[in-house]
């Protein structure tokens, strides 16, 4: 048998990078961890919360999460906060000043870049923050390193009195690999020490701290040259030497096993002498970095001839299928290692198949909302970040903007205040989810109210952070560990922000006539209105399934109204073109409901004029054919 790695079982765990970070933090004696969910970082805190001997929280946003971690660090506890790349934009206000202060207990900021845009509104390179904030950036290459470097990050943070950025990418976070973990070390909190000159960043105090921060950066630069985190790995093919950081190390090893390389674990500040030493041994130096040419520019500025983004893409993952052809072309080699027969090329040519974009779920409470929005004319709809962003797609086409967390509020107000003469009758609508509203929408709503905006806000409360997998938030009544927690009352909250009580409606989004009425009424009123929908995400335990529906073929007239709901359980069975008495042609579309998928949400029957959508049980009773 193939027992190739005969390690004893208990030492080998199969973990995602996110789980490995959580394990590393727990072992490092981390006592406080905070995050806001965001792909691909979400599971870090979910795994942290499975360890009982530390405090973990879902924060309302990343800035608060970082501030909680900063407070815990100043209290002398090791502290972790985790976020996706765009989260660090939100948290950066705190980060840019905390770098002046330093730390008490080790402070680690784990930030996950969505390289390849699996579920994000942009693709950023968080390594920029290291340079921007003069902070060390650790870049693991796989789950084992994510575990090790998380532990290392806490130690480094205390050794250099600095927050440490742990830079992850989707390929680290969401790849499971073998991890050999260790034991937890207990790190009791060492206590808060008052020191206003250091902790109160007035201009004068900050002025004293800046030189200390810069001096720390120089010490880190020297450390970068000697630490085991950075190293040269020799190879017998001296034509190209690679500078690698994070996951690109393994992509390069896979693609060019004989190439010499520098492996950077501490990517900022970079070890320029180590890189210079590699450059001296090879004909060409190529930097393989995801995604921006940060290292490349520094290396060039240091006077070392280097290639990088002249050969490789400035976006997406630099996996073997990208690296190999690019480097082979650079070396003037054919695309494949040996001349490939024509058939082999055909064999591996990509196939064009229809797109299969993500859709809203069967019975999603957002379906009825977008059905109504798609039926209202003369709208401008400012959208936001969440599952409901899918409302921009088929069949609803009912979202006109999506930018950043909470942006629907300010953008809607701007559309209202900046409207052209031609747009004077347009109804400005904002659509925002419950968690997004609490994250960064509340302030925007306050701004709309204060400045007398004519905006109708749809606050879609589905009692979950839906897109990231149904996490808890202050509106769900539960905390990260599922324990009872104070629950936000959204009606009271928006009224407290100044929305008039008569302009606030709470609506069941499955009751189409009521939802329609509220929406039609409020878009006509020149005032700030909020319509709160109140049914849970269908993927959470809070959703209750009901008996399914089916379509009576004999009654279905092919009007296709129900398809406008956009429920994936409704499928077209056949199309027909009929000639009407007046000679005009009409396209008819007949449908069926996948009763095994249908959860009986009762939405589509309300769109069916001929009442052809009936409970499945009625068909069974009648013995009718479906």
């Amino acid at each position, binding site marked *: *048998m*193939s*027992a*190739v*790695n005969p390690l004893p*079982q208990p030492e*080998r765990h*199969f973990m*995602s990078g996110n789980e490995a970070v959580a394990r590393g933090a727990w072992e490092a004696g981390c006592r406080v961890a905070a995050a806001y969910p965001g*792909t*691909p970082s979400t*599971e870090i805190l979910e795994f942290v919360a499975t360890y009982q001997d530390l405090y973990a929280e879902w924060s309302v946003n990343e800035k608060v999460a970082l501030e909680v971690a900063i407070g815990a660090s100043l209290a002398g506890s090791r502290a972790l906060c985790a976020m996706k790349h765009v989260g660090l934009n939100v948290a950066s206000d705190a980060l840019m000043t905390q770098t002046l202060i330093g730390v008490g207990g080790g402070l680690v900021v784990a930030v996950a870049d969505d390289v390849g845009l*699996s*579920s994000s509104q942009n693709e950023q390179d968080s390594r920029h923050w290291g340079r921007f904030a003069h902070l060390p950036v650790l870049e693991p290459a*796989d789950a084992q390193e994510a575990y090790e470097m998380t532990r290392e990050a806490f130690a480094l943070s205390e050794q250099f009195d600095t927050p440490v950025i742990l830079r992850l990418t989707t*390929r680290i976070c*969401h*790849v*499971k*690999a*073998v991890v050999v973990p260790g034991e937890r070390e207990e790190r009791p909190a060492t206590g808060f020490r008052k020191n206003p000159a250091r902790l109160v960043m007035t201009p004068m105090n900050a002025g004293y701290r800046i030189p200390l921060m810069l001096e720390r950066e120089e010490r880190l630069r020297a450390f970068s040259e000697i630490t085991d985190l950075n190293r040269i790995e020799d190879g017998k093919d001296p034509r190209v030497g690679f500078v690698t950081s994070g*996951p690109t190390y*393994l*992509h390069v*090893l*896979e*693609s060019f096993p004989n190439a010499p390389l520098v492996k950077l674990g501490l990517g900022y500040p970079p070890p320029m002498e180590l890189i210079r030493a590699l450059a001296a041994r090879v004909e060409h130096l190529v930097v393989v970095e995801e995604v921006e040419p940060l290292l490349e520019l520094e290396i060039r500025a240091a006077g070392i001839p280097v290639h990088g983004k002249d050969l490789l893409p400035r976006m997406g*993952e630099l*996996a*073997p*299928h990208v690296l190999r052809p690019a480097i082979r072309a650079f070396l003037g080699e054919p695309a494949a290692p040996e001349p490939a027969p024509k*058939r*082999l090329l*055909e*064999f*591996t*040519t*990509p*196939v064009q*198949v*229809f*797109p*299969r*974009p*993500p*859709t809203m*779920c069967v019975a999603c409470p957002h379906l009825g909302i977008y059905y109504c929005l798609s039926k209202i004319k003369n709208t401008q709809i400012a959208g936001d970040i969440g*599952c409901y962003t*899918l409302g921009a797609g*088929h*069949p609803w086409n009912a979202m006109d903007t999506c930018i950043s967390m909470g942006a629907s509020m300010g953008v809607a107000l701007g559309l209202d205040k900046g409207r052209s003469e031609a747009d004077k009758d347009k109804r400005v609508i904002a659509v925002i989810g419950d968690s997004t509203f609490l994250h960064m929408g509340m302030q925007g709503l306050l701004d709309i109210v204060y400045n007398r905006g004519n905006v109708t806000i749809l606050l879609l409360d589905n009692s979950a952070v839906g897109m*990231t*997998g149904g996490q808890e938030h202050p509106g769900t009544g539960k905390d990260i560990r599922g324990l009872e927690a104070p629950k936000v009352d959204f009606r009271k909250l928006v009224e407290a922000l100044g929305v008039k009580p008569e302009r606030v409606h709470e609506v069941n989004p499955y009751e189409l006539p009521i939802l329609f009425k509220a929406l039609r009424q409020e878009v006509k009123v020149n005032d700030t209105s909020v319509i709160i929908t109140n049914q849970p995400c269908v993927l959470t335990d809070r959703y209750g399934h009901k008996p399914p529906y089916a379509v009576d073929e004999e009654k279905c007239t092919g009007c296709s109204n129900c*398809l406008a709901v*956009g429920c*994936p359980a409704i*499928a*077209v069975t056949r*199309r027909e073109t009929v000639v009407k008495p007046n000679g005009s042609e009409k396209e008819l579309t007949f449908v069926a409901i996948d009763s*095994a998928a249908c959860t009986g949400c009762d939405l589509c029957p309300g769109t069916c004029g001929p009442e052809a959508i009936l409970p499945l049980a009625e068909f069974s009773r009648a013995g009718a054919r479906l």
Partner: protein
Amino acid sequence: MNAAKTGEGKVTNILVSGIGGQGVMTAAEVLSQTALSQGYDVKKTEVAGMAQRGGVVTSHVRFGRRVLSPAIPHGEADILVGFEPAEALRWCGQLRPGGVAMVNRLRQEPPVVTLGLFPYPDDPVGEMRARGIEVHAFDAGAIARELGNLKLVNTVMLGAIADYLPFPAEILKEAILARFRDSKPALVAVNEQAFEAGRAAQAAV
């Protein structure tokens, strides 16, 4: 028969493809855990986020003495496990020459197809064969339904590849059944049937 078998020391690459909610991730996890139990180094991509919402889901499972990049390089997959015919066709270019594809014939059309915006390929399996790929296609959905539970598609598909792995099929079967033995012992027998049905189905086509 064992066309896709790889020698010891080599990395075995298995690409599992399908649609969010079909059990692609579970199948990849079972494969990975089984390879892990055999002492291999293993890497597996997990897809999260928007892919849960009916979108395309793929998982790369790689195991061997040492696995480097977690992504299967293009044209190096030994086995393609297609939970849906169009999804198998979409990714078949990732197979190495001589690799095999196991395809569930049960079609699942997305809204963009049912709304008439894009056509569904007429004969995805035929297109794959025209490219010279060894395809074993069968209706895993029908097999699962006959056994009384559509969720068994997962076990049927794993049964179909069981004879193409560098370890005996019984080891994969035992790993699957062990998952049910503790939590849902009532499902052990039917999963064993599904596994064997998948093994037989691929051999027959």
